[in-house]
């Protein structure tokens, strides 16, 4: 039987959650025995090659590209997991949600202390995805099946959750793995 496939992505995140995944150390060898990676920065596969059992989403949606990727993940994955606080709640990027968009862009591209932008225009290359009015957590854009809290969730949290799901067991993480206080 073919190994189940896993896809991962980092949207409006910092790749910290992916780093945490790598933090499972030598268990990564076990993981490769268990699964095959599909679209993911881990193996640099850019497009889905088929249906995946699990999709791990890091980060929320701050621009329209994020929305596209997230929707694609939803269409291709049986189980979609919000990994980390940005995917779950918006996290640090969502700090801008209380600031009007124009002020954000002005600070970033016009008025910022280290900005040199004599004509005062925002970058407008069509390759640059348009920014959303605010940062949305993943579950406000698509249906999410599981949430793994943490900034980032520890390697053990990720490992336990993945192993449980891959073995058709209920995801019942011990309190120590999901408490952050």
């Amino acid at each position: 039987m073919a190994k189940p496939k896993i896809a991962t992505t980092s949207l409006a995140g910092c790749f910290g959650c992916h780093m945490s995944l790598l933090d499972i150390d030598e268990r990564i060898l076990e993981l490769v025995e268990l699964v095959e990676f599909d679209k993911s920065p881990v193996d640099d596969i850019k497009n889905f090659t088929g249906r995946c059992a699990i999709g791990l989403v890091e980060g929320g949606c701050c621009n329209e590209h994020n929305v596209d990727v997230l929707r694609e993940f939803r269409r291709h994955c049986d189980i979609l997991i919000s990994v980390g606080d940005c995917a779950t709640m918006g996290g640090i990027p969502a700090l801008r949600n209380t600031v009007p968009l124009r002020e954000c862009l002005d600070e970033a591209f016009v008025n910022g202390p280290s900005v040199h932008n004599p004509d005062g225009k925002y970058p407008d290359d069509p390759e640059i995805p348009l920014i959303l009015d605010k940062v949305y957590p993943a579950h406000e854009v698509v249906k999410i099946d599981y949430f793994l809290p943490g900034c980032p969730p520890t390697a053990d949290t990720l490992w336990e959750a993945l192993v449980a799901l891959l073995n058709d067991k209920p995801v019942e993480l011990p309190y120590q793995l999901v408490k952050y206080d």
Partner: protein
Amino acid sequence: MAEILEEAAIREICQAHDCNRARLLDIARAVHKKCGYISGHAMNLIADELSTHRVEVESLVSFYSFLSDKPRGRIVIRLCNDIIDQMNGAQLVGRAFSEELGIDFGRTASDGAITLEHTACIGMCDQAPAALINDVVVTNLSSDKAREIVRELRQHTDPQRLVKHLGDGNNAHELVNSMVQNNVRLPGPSIFSPVNRGEALRKALVMSPAEVIRAIKTARLRGRGGAGFPTGMKWEFARAAPGDRKFVFCNADEGEPGTFKDRAILTERADRVFAGMTIAGYAIGASEGILYLRGEYAYLRPFLEHVLQKRREDGLLGDDIFAAEREPAPPKPAGERDVHRRPGTAGRRPFSFDIRIQMGAGAYVCGEETALINSCEGMRGDPRNRPPFPAQEGFLGCPTVVNNVETLCCAAKILEEGPATFNQYGSEQSSGTKLLSISGDCRRPGIYEVSFGIELSEVLEMCGARDAIAVQVGGASGEMVAPDQYDRTICFDDLCTGGAIMVFGPGRNVLEIARSFMDFFVEESCGYCTPCRVGNVLLRERLEKILDAKGEPADLEYLEALCRTIKTGSRCGLGQTSANPVLTTLKNFRKVYEVMVQEDREGLKRSFDLQRAVAEAEELCGRESIHNHV
């Protein structure tokens, strides 16, 4: 010059209240009346006179909706916007007010004369739409009347002159002078029976306090405000609590939307309420009582003060009540009848009791007993932690009994005619009668005194609402009942209510109604605890999402879970019941929700609108989203 005069006036107001910090609410109300608002400077002055901090004054002013820290018109029009008023056309009336004044709600006309505001239920659902114009109640409004009112006010600036026809009963009393109608459709054997003035109190004073409490217990009287706590037990706790100074509070902060029974009791049977308070005072060993009257009922105050004064003059209140009967009476001229003289009261110890009226200032949460006590102490109406319960530690730390207006009426009636007469109505667990205030889509809205245990269907028959599609029992915090449950009964074990019955006829949307109730709770939450302050907003948001046809089945589970959190996590009765509109409609009207929610086949969220989310960036960056070309 004007400033100096105003300063003197504010200091005078403080001194008239003995610069007593506990009277801050009264002082703030008086200053507000004098100056039209409470400026920062006035706050400083008050704080200075009361030897307290300005923040205490500011915090109080910001809490009560009838107090403002910004200049307002000499005339404030407060249009009631509860669901029943909305159903009766409050929106049209509001638009008429708004157009005629040329201002939006929350604004003051440019000449500074008139301010226009919305307010929560003012206890006039049976004659909706209604509004408060300063203290004057205007009822049965229409857009034409609204325009007429504005024109008249511009001419004579006297709200009282808007009252052209007086209401029935004591509403026409010269000290009430109101167009409010009692609408007592069914006077029953207890509350609205004729008052035999002084009788209940006389009988109580013949007994020992313990016997009085026993009589209340034998009658199995339970609180009429909605919670149904056994009154006798409450009195007993207060009696047993240590302390020389104790208090009796009458809770006339009738704020539960759809409730207006206390309005009629206070208008028609104030004597009975005060007798009940005096009896409670005798039973628990208190000599001071406070009637907490909601700000919306300020028009009743002069009349109630008059009733109190009359009781003092007749020896039914004040120092040494029934003194003449306790001691040998001085010889009277022949022919003069001494109505108070009866055998039996001689030999008891003197009993003194007096009552003062504390005005509220527009805060629903003050109906919660500990919030009410805080309010009387001149603080924000935030509820307190319990225990200690007020019966142990209440007003000023003293044992305090807080009873509903109707409960005290019942207590007086029990003493008047004995527990057995009271008991013959109602059921084992719910004895006596209950006042229902019925409003909404029915032909005969008003007040009905019924025996506990009456079926809801019978109530609907009575008020002319056979085609009701839903009935909200117990006000906003109560239960929405569906037609297949109209055989349920009004009593403490089934449909428990402080009296509010709101009837909804064909064509009404229960979700819209629930949303309107959530608007109310979001507005009235005191904000102290997070489950209530935040939870109610989230509930409303999700409800709106469903109403916008953007909901998904998972939203119903979310609502249920959130309701449970708010219910169990909140600090006082407001939060513990605020989720009920959602919870009970989810339970009894599940189908209405289910047709509104839908799962997306691809697992996308229907509530997420990409086009709207990028619209601003499109404008700022001057190019279109790539999604527009897909």
